[in-house]
């Protein structure tokens, strides 16, 4: 596994903690929604960044009030065809103003990266052999877009009229 941000492999400061594992002292952890619900007070009270891992059927709206305490949301893509994460990322950014990292974990395909970035995903956990070229291409493959997205670029519809 490697973590890719801004088209480069970077060190990952976060530890995914399974539901029945101990929380490592002082470390940034990513926990499941189930764990978060069970241990909420303890997790929020820790003196280290907290990340939340959402399954594709777990909407961010279910933790809306706590998003301010969360620094990273990992969205699971159990299979590339499951596109719920795109709507969840958009909602995190647009509806809840979430400005921490949104990380895609699971089955991510080369050609999905441009869409994911536009929906607000800025971290990618991918296999070690996943080509970085895919992330380079994602920056250039489409110059302009028809729809507004979280990057705030003007749309083609707007560009046409100054």
């Amino acid at each position, binding site marked *: 596994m490697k973590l890719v941000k801004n088209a480069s492999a970077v060190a990952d400061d976060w530890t995914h903690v399974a539901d029945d594992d101990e929380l490592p002292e002082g470390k940034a952890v990513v926990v499941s929604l189930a764990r978060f619900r069970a241990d909420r007070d303890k997790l929020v009270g820790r003196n280290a960044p907290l990340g939340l891992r959402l399954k594709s059927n777990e909407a961010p709206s279910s933790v809306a009030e706590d998003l301010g305490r969360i620094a990273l949301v990992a969205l699971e893509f159990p299979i590339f065809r499951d*596109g719920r994460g795109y709507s969840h990322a958009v909602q995190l950014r*647009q509806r809840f103003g979430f400005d921490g990292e949104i990380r895609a974990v699971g089955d991510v395909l080369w050609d999905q990266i441009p869409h994911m970035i536009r929906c607000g995903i800025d971290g990618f956990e991918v296999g070690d052999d996943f080509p970085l070229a895919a992330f380079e291409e994602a920056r250039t493959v489409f110059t302009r877009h028809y729809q*507004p997205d979280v990057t705030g670029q003007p749309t083609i*519809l707007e560009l046409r009229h100054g």
Partner: protein
Amino acid sequence: MYRYDEFDQQAVDERVAQFRGQVGRRLKGELTEDQFKPLRLMNGLYLQLHAYMLRVAIPYGTLSPRQMRMLAHVARKYDKGYGHFTTRQNIQYNWPRLVDTPDILADLATVEMHGIQTSGNCIRNVTSDPFSGVAAGEVEDPRPWCEIIRQWSSFHPEFSYLPRKFKIAVTGSEHDRAAIKLHDIGIRVVRNAAGETGFEFWIGGGMGRTPIIAKKIRDFVPKADLLDYATACLRVYNELGRRDNIYKARIKILVHEMGLEKYSALVDEEFARSQGTVKLPDAEIARIQAYFAPPAYETLPATSTAFEARRFEDKGFRTFVRTNVHAHKVPGYAIVSVSLKAPGVAPGDASADQMDAVADIAERYSLDELRVTHEQNLVLPNVKLDDLYTVWKQLSAAGLGSANIGLISDIICCPGLDYCDLANARSIPIADELQQRFADLERQYAIGSLKIKMSGCINACGHHHVGHIGILGVDKHGKELYQLQLGGSGAEDASIGQITGAGFPPERIVGAVETVIETYLSLRHGDAETFLDCYRRVGLAPFKAALYEAR
């Protein structure tokens, strides 16, 4: 017609380049077929029984002669010299080679065409009334709105991996020639009391194994909210639509299971939050509408003596006019339907030469415009009455003069077992046999308006659920059987056909249709009562009796 500006062209060119890279990676083995599949599908490339199939979009069914010639070129250069016009205003090529597909898409891009989102679980090619802009009594030409939807839905970052495919159709007329109630979203352009344009939204219609007629979700969505409201509908579907079973993944099932009220409440909440996000500047609406301004019509008398004389003299022409020529909103002009249902030809197929011929005719006689219909025919939207005779002659010379629009031989039919690996049964040969059985035009006229629609399996690509007479290929212990359905309609009076009973083997299905027809003829109240009206009056029972009791 809409013309791409540099932004549109750039987006399509970039897509072709992206696809070329993907095909390259596939050919080198860097992508498995499984990984390649969603990518090729987003570009209209399917794997069929014998070969790849490429589906090319004809957005809202409008195309120029230049584009039609390119479709002919692709058929000639990369395929076996013909193409298949589908039930969703697309054209399919059945024999392209994978290595050629990037070049095909590059060729198409030179005339502002592509295969983007003609398959895959995304927002598909938006369809419309083939008579848009020329039909008498239209509220407004729906095509500018279709174009706006086309652009907004192209490469949509959030809605490219929906639970299932998503089809949007738009009409500007009361009389629905776009089957909007059988789409995931159906839109009717309307005016409110203040004379403002807006949209009536219908949600959750579709065919497949669970046919459902769409439900009205909003009476009036204002212009400025069109894309935000559609976004809200899609966002709720993307989150909550079922992904556990592909047969339950269409939005129709979500709306059906959750109930319209609950679904629409969720959409309203989402819409209230996100209204104003997708900016649709008035200047942009005006820019796009300008492309669809009426062409330079001449001021002509409402009747043409030359035309009347020809109609009087020539019986062949008279029958053609009777079925294939429709009222135009401008005096002295007519809309001409070009039938792709000639005997012995698979419904919707056209040869490259025929495509070129219609392109020439459209250029000379139809103000440079062509349409394709969801009933798998073509339309010349702007023909002067004075030119009708010449147009008919030229169409006939190209083998396109069939005078059967709306009649029993104007059959909609899916590819079936001849091309499709999902098929239970052949459909093209049955269509052919039906056309032969009812070849006599006089008999077709006596039967009157009748839509036969046929699918080779329950996926309903051939719209059998909404055929006045629907035929469905089923598999019974390894044998091909055909089920009959009666009383469907895809128009404003949409309804789903009722199954008559046990299916018929291939050698008896055409006879069964004939029995239905004979029964209708014996029951109808005068010549003016159509099959559908008669069926709705008398119900299934007499047909059932005729079909099964004699056995």
